[in-house]
């Protein structure tokens, strides 16, 4: 007959440590007590993302399926949320509880855009509510310099987001960038022009952006799929539409299925 074992009641602190260890083994990152998540402002996504948003102090990859897919728009949107420190989450179309994009919060972090090919167009970014005074553009001369700039800017606590087409990197170098982001607390958004380009970079999340046919609103749509994200299951794909007032809104899946590509001639006639 076995004596009754009194199971020790684990202390909350111990529980937290164990939980943290589990997350780490499952692929967590950084120190839990310093980990922040930035709401993307799209309720459907935020509800499904581990932590309720985009992990701060981390590297995220954005894969573009084709030219004009919307990866820059999505990167800029996430960067703007990071610079604001995260807007209160607001649901899709019609929700007006969120402050408008024009209402600028007190100076947030800087947004650094690496633009080697000289293609980034700041006036368009201003239209997305990016304060030009907090936007810094850097034009790296070569891949080595680009890597150095990304590393330096990620380490700076005043930089909320770095957006860059990443140079080819070894795994250790990619790891170093992740550590730099953890030190600085901002987000690094690496844009891959073609899906094949991204290797195993050790990024905290990987997003694939693909274009989607527009609906009657005549505004651009794109589909965002989280291919991988650490610390939880990836949310289902979200169809996103450009809204001239709210910026980006999530379109419900049902609505998305109903939109039939209209014949070109019909649209032009309208």
């Amino acid at each position, binding site marked *: 007959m076995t004596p009754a074992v009194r199971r020790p009641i684990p202390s909350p602190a111990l529980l937290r440590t164990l939980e943290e260890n589990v997350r780490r083994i499952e692929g967590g990152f950084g120190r839990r007590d310093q980990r922040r998540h930035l709401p993307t402002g799209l309720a459907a996504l935020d509800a499904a993302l581990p932590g309720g948003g985009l992990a701060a102090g981390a590297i995220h990859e954005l894969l573009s399926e084709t030219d004009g897919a919307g990866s820059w728009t999505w990167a800029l949107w996430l960067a703007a949320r990071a610079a604001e420190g995260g807007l209160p989450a607001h649901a899709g179309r019609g929700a007006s509880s969120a402050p408008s994009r024009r209402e600028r919060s007190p100076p947030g972090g800087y947004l650094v855009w690496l633009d080697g090919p000289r293609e*980034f167009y700041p006036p368009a970014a201003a239209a997305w509510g990016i304060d030009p005074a907090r936007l810094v553009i850097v034009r*790296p001369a070569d891949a080595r310099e680009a890597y150095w700039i990304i590393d330096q800017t990620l380490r700076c606590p005043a930089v909320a987001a770095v957006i860059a087409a990443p140079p080819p990197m070894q795994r250790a170098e990619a790891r170093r960038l992740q550590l730099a982001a953890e030190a600085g607390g901002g987000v690094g958004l690496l844009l891959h022009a073609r899906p094949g380009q991204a290797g195993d970079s050790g990024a905290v999340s990987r997003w694939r952006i693909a274009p989607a046919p527009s609906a009657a609103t005549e505004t651009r749509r794109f589909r965002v799929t989280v291919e991988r994200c650490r610390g939880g299951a990836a949310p289902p794909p979200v169809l996103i539409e450009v809204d001239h007032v709210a910026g980006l809104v999530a379109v419900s899946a049902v609505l998305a299925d109903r939109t039939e590509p209209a014949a070109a001639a019909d649209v032009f006639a309208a």
Partner: protein
Amino acid sequence: MLLIERTGNTQRVAACSAEAVARGVRPGVTLAHAQALVPEADTAPFDAAGDAAALHALALWAMRFAPAVALDPPDALLLDVTGCARLFGGDLRLLNQAADAVERLAFTVRAALADTVGAAWALSHGGDEPRALVPPGQCYAALAHLPPWTLRLSPEILDRLDALGLQRIESLLMLPRATLPARFGDKLLLRIDQALGRATELLSPVRPPPQAAARMNFEHAVTDRRTLEYALAPVLVDFVAQLTRQGRGARRIELSLFRERNVPLSRSICLCAPNRAIGHLSGLLRAQLERMDPADGVVCLELAAIETGLIVAAQGDFFEDDRSVAAEAAAELFDRLTARCGSDRVFRPGLVESHRPEKAWRAEAISSPRSARSGAGDRASAALLSDPRISVPDLRPLRLLPRPVPIQAMAVVPDQPPMWFRYRGREHRTRRGIGPERLSGEWWTGEKESRDYYRVETENGAWFWVFREETSGQWYLHGIHE
């Protein structure tokens, strides 16, 4: 009162008071002549070096009115007031404030403000009024009746003009222009053109003494960069100590290497915010040192603060403290990036009003004072943000090709977007096209061509920004809604 200078064996009057002038004394007459006219006059030796030093001091003082002040010995200062009038409430106020301030220093002043250095000089030296303001574009009218000497001409040229009986600038200008160089030399034409604004005239402004400077002299010329790096450390410590005593930080530092038989080598670093952190400055200065070649033998290494700013001590408030730490970190980051990449590759955008989308912004230096406080550039940007074309997202593409790319495209009717186009070897069928948005050329820059822009959506849902050139009908792809 007579100031006397000695040339050879004769004593001449170098300068005299207004009372003496009234009695017929002129600078240049002999002392004996002058004393015959004004027997009771006091005399004193003329101190040319003292005058020059005083003029220099006055030039530095005058920098409160204009950023660039040049000396025009023996008795004039040239102020480049381009863009300054705004700060003083107009040209006239600037002129009066400056002249009043000089008078308060117990100087007699004649002042003129004009488009050109030449016109301002002529009116201040030979005009009827002690203060003259020449409205923009009125240089000729203001100068016409003045005598030719006010054009800053050499005595030889003046003698020849005098011989021809030319008493006024307008009569001089009636001479055929082509004959002037042959008759009077190139200088006359240059002076005329400078006065009327046809030729540019550069000032060489005085430079204020550095607010902090530290140097190390070497007994033997140093050719080894490592030695210079070692020497930099104590010089920097001394330099930073000077800044600390003043409660200031450097905004621009010049690192100079003086060489035995050659001109000094200099490189300067600009800082986004006043800084005196040894670790930060040392990193930036060492990077500059790496680009300087000490092979010729360096005898002295010097650091000079060309520009400084106050460092405001961090407030006790925890939140504020956090923020100032972040601001400092940002400034140091941008300093490092600028030091490595150069200021033309690290910048912030400023919005500009333009009909050409590619010209609707320009790069602004992060280290410009504008970025430190919310300045004119930011207000201009803010004003432009109310323009719907700039304030509504997605009307302009985030990715704008540096140069529009000609594309093969087909539109059914000229005023419609293309049904089909080919870009980078791929055919795109369009399913939607929004436009046209006509952006006309800026005729004053020579770009007259109007463009009809369309936002087109291709079959798969990607959006492009294309335009048709009005006259040629050629289609271009200009941007991608990436």
